[in-house]
């Protein structure tokens, strides 16, 4: 199993670029009506999930909400399988049956893609319960947005997680808005991290635009959890550049606010850090970006030419035995 500190930072930068270019292309394909339903883009938040997966083992469980494209890509699900899922094709990571909000990859321990806000936090408790039950030293990373913290399922799950001392890192991707409602208008607390204190869960605030800080704080939590099973809560402050979903022009925030965060872009930041340290040249960065763009273009081609499941197959997925009821 690969250890966190061995993950190459240039590779992690490449992964962030892949997510960025994937989402840009998904946006374009959505506008071209190749992608249906809802589509929530991760642009701006790339350092959170890439920092997280860089901090843990490949067999640790990850689970997230509906803004999940980046999570699957970060875990190693191919751009082909992700794009094909958006296109509803049989070659998609959920065979075209889940769509944008329901990316799953069992082999890579990516437990979804869940679209009811907060409803997957109890599932994370269950994943962690299972690893503790089997005496494994696995950690579950549970990602959720700032909107989830006011949902009942979140509170019930946090209490259970703390009560049973389950090995979960609760990662709040605070991008300041639950759809169009700012945290200030939705949450009675001064800061989200105080939710953790209410359940006696150790917590920390993390700069989500800084890959290294995300990676190091999650790695620190994971090391402590593996030693002695317990939860941790990280409020990761980040920002999404696009609207809540493709249909949202995000008119509830100012251009100045968006510009402020764009200047603090996580990809630009990691690039600058690596360049300063002599680990990356401009030519190398351009080559990485070119490669990401190419991978995504090929994914679109792959998705376009992939087959759909035959309609009669729908009964196969009603339950495991495919019994028609």
């Amino acid at each position, binding site marked *: 199993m690969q250890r966190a500190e061995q993950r190459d930072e240039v590779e992690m930068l490449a992964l962030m670029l892949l997510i960025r270019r994937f989402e840009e292309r998904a946006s374009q394909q959505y506008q071209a009506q190749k992608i249906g339903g809802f589509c929530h883009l991760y642009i701006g938040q790339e350092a959170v999930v890439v920092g997280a997966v860089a901090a843990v083992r490949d067999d640790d469980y990850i689970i997230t909400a509906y803004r999940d494209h980046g999570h699957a890509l970060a875990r190693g699900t191919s751009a082909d399988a992700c794009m094909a899922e958006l296109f509803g094709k049989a070659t998609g990571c959920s065979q075209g*049956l889940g769509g944008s909000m329901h990316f*799953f990859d069992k082999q890579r321990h990516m437990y979804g893609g869940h679209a009811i806000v907060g409803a997957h936090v109890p599932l994370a408790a*269950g994943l962690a319960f299972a690893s503790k039950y089997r005496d494994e030293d696995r950690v579950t990373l549970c990602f959720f947005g700032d909107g989830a913290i006011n949902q009942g*399922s979140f509170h019930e799950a946090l209490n259970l997680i703390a009560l049973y001392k389950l090995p979960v890192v609760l990662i709040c991707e605070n991008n300041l808005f639950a759809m169009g409602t700012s945290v200030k208008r939705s949450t009675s607390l001064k800061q989200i991290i105080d939710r953790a204190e209410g359940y006696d869960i150790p917590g920390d605030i993390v700069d989500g635009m800084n890959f290294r800080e995300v990676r190091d704080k999650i790695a620190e939590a994971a090391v402590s959890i593996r030693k002695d099973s317990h939860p941790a809560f990280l409020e990761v402050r980040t920002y999404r550049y696009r609207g809540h979903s493709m249909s949202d022009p995000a008119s509830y925030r100012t251009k100045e606010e968006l510009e402020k965060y764009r200047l603090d872009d996580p990809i630009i930041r990691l690039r600058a850090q690596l360049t300063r340290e002599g680990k990356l040249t401009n030519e190398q960065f351009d080559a990485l970006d070119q490669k990401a763009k190419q991978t995504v273009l090929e994914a679109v081609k792959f998705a376009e030419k992939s087959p759909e499941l035959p309609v009669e197959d729908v009964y196969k997925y009603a*339950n495991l035995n495919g019994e028609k009821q």
Partner: protein
Amino acid sequence: MREITYRQALNEALAEELERDPNVFLMGEEVAEYQGAYKVSQGLLERFGPKRIIDTPISENGFAGLGVGAAMAGLRPIIEFMTWSFSLVAFDQVVNNAPNMFMMSGGQFNIPITFRGPNGPAHQLAATHSHATENFYASVPGLKVCTPATPRDAKGLLKSAVRDENPVLVLEAELLYSSKGMVEPPDEELLIPLGQAEVKREGSDVSIICYAQTVPLALAVAAQLEAEDISAEIVDLRSIKPLDERAIFNSASKTHRVVIVEQDRPFCGVGAEVCYRIQKNIFDELDAPIMRVSQEDVPMPYNEKLEKFVLPNADKLMSAVKKVCYA
């Protein structure tokens, strides 16, 4: 065969499945130290320990979801609701997460979970605690729903539920926990397949289709009808979904007259589905319109007299049978 209670039968099923498979665990409110709100889990904590018999806080949504997550990771949870009326605060987990995961994940995650607990109106528990939830849950694709009426069925169905690879809801009959019946000895494996009805009494003049708490009601009415020279056949559905159409059609084709007595509500109730399938498939076999006896379409009153009026009862069933028999 020996005689045991419905409660003991469930307890045996739990113990046998916990013994057989280390991935099985039981979780719910008061299941461990208190020995079960209805004593169904009596003695299990002592025998299997706190790692596998787990008390929860009052957080149905939370622990139902925990169960679904544990099932995604390969365990086989048995989640007890103190009553199915309380499952309504966990509706999202039971309806949205458990049965949808297999489809949403393109077949990667089946959810081998059992949700169980007492269901249906009991005695003067008023509106919030008297829900018969079978018609809500049977309408959800991907959920299997069974409703045992006897100790033997309770044991055999619960064991099959735990072994199923999909979410199964075992809706136990709250009023029947202390009822007795003959069950195979513990050293004899008893598995009753989901989706198989059973003829509880043979008859020739009318088919009474029933399940759960309406089975003893139908049997009692059949005995009264015998005195009036009407021979009633009692078909216990045992599982609401999958529904055993074959058994229903066989009986209806034999008697040509059908009454459905269900413990849930009349509007979109289980009986409506059964009725539709009979007329669609064997319309020509019927000699009379099908009758349904259900609850009245009102929230359950606390008052004892009013509650009796709302529930299906012997008088209502008797008169429905006479109507279809033109007697």
